[in-house]
């Protein structure tokens, strides 16, 4: 029992950070599933959501600023796609990837310009940032809420993709981009919807992540973004359940490794694990086998 209560905090931290990675990873995996594009700017959208919250909460109450963060992040995600990716739809895939890297640095540098480069303190959101005790471990309430909220959102998303018309369109577009266009699917609105969902989840992820880890800097999105991307690849890129499970595995693994005292290697282990999985199963845990069409 004592062993359990000593080690529970590591597990809790792992599950919670895993849930936050999952929310970001979905954005990567959905965009990849449809556009075959690795959206490098996604981690920075996550960071921008954090900054919007900081500035919004100084001038308006929480019940306005939280919805505002969600809406503003969605608008930014939508605009990024329209401005930086849509004009390049028929260009070689490499060009659009470079464009994504450009957007990433643009957002980071804009944030650097606006904040002056200093870490901004994230506001405490009432209720979820209260300190609570779970089975003898003291932590913030958000740690416990995150995995549940993540799972609810993922179930809602899977339902949306399975049972709605736009969901069907998304599935069609991810199977075959050109044919679905010929079948009368408005491909632009499908893609916009993908970015809207991805950005919305990133915004929710940022609310949860920064409530626990309260400093926002212009480059704060880089590491969670990278880990979420790894999680998406790990689970099989293009697969939503894969991304979520991959994210939880990575979050829990890295915290257990820290708990075992190998803090110096926690990131190295995470990425080594990725290599091992990919060698054993090149398409990731849930990835589809790619069949070459002749």
């Amino acid at each position, binding site marked *: 029992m004592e062993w359990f209560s000593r080690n529970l905090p590591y597990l809790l931290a792992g599950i919670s950070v895993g849930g936050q990675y999952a929310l970001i990873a979905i954005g990567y995996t959905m965009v990849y599933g449809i556009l075959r594009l690795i959206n490098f700017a996604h981690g920075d959208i996550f960071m921008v959501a954090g900054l919007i919250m900081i500035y919004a909460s100084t001038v308006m109450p929480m019940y306005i600023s939280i919805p505002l963060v969600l809406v503003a992040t969605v608008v930014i995600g939508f605009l990024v796609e329209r401005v930086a990716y849509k004009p390049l739809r028929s260009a070689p895939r490499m060009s659009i990837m470079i464009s994504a890297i450009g957007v990433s640095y643009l957002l980071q540098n804009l944030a650097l310009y606006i904040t002056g480069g200093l870490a901004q*303190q994230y506001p405490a959101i009432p209720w979820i940032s209260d300190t609570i005790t779970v089975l003898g471990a003291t932590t*913030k309430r958000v740690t416990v809420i995150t995995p549940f909220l993540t799972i609810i959102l993922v179930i809602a998303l899977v339902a949306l993709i399975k049972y709605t018309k736009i969901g069907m369109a998304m599935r069609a577009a991810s199977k075959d981009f050109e044919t679905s266009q010929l079948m009368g699917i408005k491909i632009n609105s499908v893609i916009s919807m993908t970015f809207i969902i991805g950005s919305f989840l990133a915004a929710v992820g940022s609310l949860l992540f920064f409530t626990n880890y309260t400093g926002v800097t212009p480059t704060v999105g880089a590491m969670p973004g990278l880990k979420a991307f790894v999680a998406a690849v790990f689970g099989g890129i293009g697969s939503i359940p894969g991304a979520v499970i991959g994210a939880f595995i990575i979050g829990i693994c890295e915290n257990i490794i820290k708990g075992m005292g190998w803090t110096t290697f926690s990131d190295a282990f995470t990425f080594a694990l990725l290599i091992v999985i990919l060698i054993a199963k090149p398409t990731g845990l849930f990835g589809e086998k790619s069949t070459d069409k002749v």
Partner: protein
Amino acid sequence: MKKRVLAVLLSAAVAVSMVAATAATAFAADTVKIGVYEPASGDNGAGGKQETLGIQYANSVQPTVEIDGKEYNVELDIVDNESSNDKGPSAASKLVSDGVSVVLGSYGSSVAIAASDIFKQGGVPAIGVTCTNPQVTQGNTHYFRICFLDPFQGTVLANFASDKFKAKKAYVLTKQGDDYSAGLGHYFTKAFEDAGGEVVSDTFPEGNSDFASYVTTAKNEGADVFFAPVSTEAAALIIDQAASQGLEAPLLAGDTWDSNVILNAAKGKNLQLYVTTFYQEGGNKEFDEGMKEFVNSDSTNKANNGGNDTIAAVSAMGYDAYFTALEALKGAGSTDPAKVNEALWDVQYDGVCGHIEFDKENGDAVRDTAYVKQANTETGAWEFVGEQGIK
């Protein structure tokens, strides 16, 4: 074709403006330039801005210097080294090519070490303001320093931990690849173990913002003190985690934590926090008042100081560094960097943080006391605990 014409026109315009700029500096003969090599962004941005503020305030107090019977205007040439070992050297090269007579900075020992060779090759002397790692001045004759060193500071902190808290076990958390953090952690560990204590150490990588597991480990190990010589950005996150997990051991840290970033993070939280530092607010009334007025007079200054007028020790040190540089210029009787470098060895100056004089071996300041302060988490202000020397 049109594009090509535009390109030619643009490059011509750039060339003209560059020539104009060089010409302008060449004609202003009565100006002496002091380079300010400080981070304004990145991990150490907050501290670097406060140090720069102290230098700017000193410049506003004393904007001229008499060198060899002639009055010179002092111009500050401020560059941002972005707290980064890769970007620091290019910022340093800019100072060298701008023709500065002496350089002040940097906050953060890593970037100071990274730029050291650039200054050496350029023949420009540098005065470290608050970079406490021994390697900054070791084995060279152009880098000086006005603050105390990490072996001293680490020992002070270790002594303080055993004197004040009767600590037997310490948890030491440092950042990978950060010379300041690793150095101070090492000297603390050494002194603490020599005194019969036990140390558990951990490191975290660059860009890490999840400190939950580290705090848990410190709690599980039953550490009596939590020592974290890290940048203020990581510090704010550690403080938050420590408070939300109800860490009972006091947090100890070195000079970097003496910043209102820390006070803001700790305000309203239930924890104990102690730092060692160079200067205690209230140590020099005239300086305090002037500095506060300078900070309050301008909204940018206030933002750079973290949004209020609490005086950081690094600002006081920046102030002293500026006057030390002026003394060196006077002593050299010339704006030639090589002469200034020679004159620096003999400079003596009584600043707001105490007497400054360099030893003849490495060019380090001779210092034997540090101030210890505690954060009052209710009012969000520093409280003076006492002076601590080494045993």
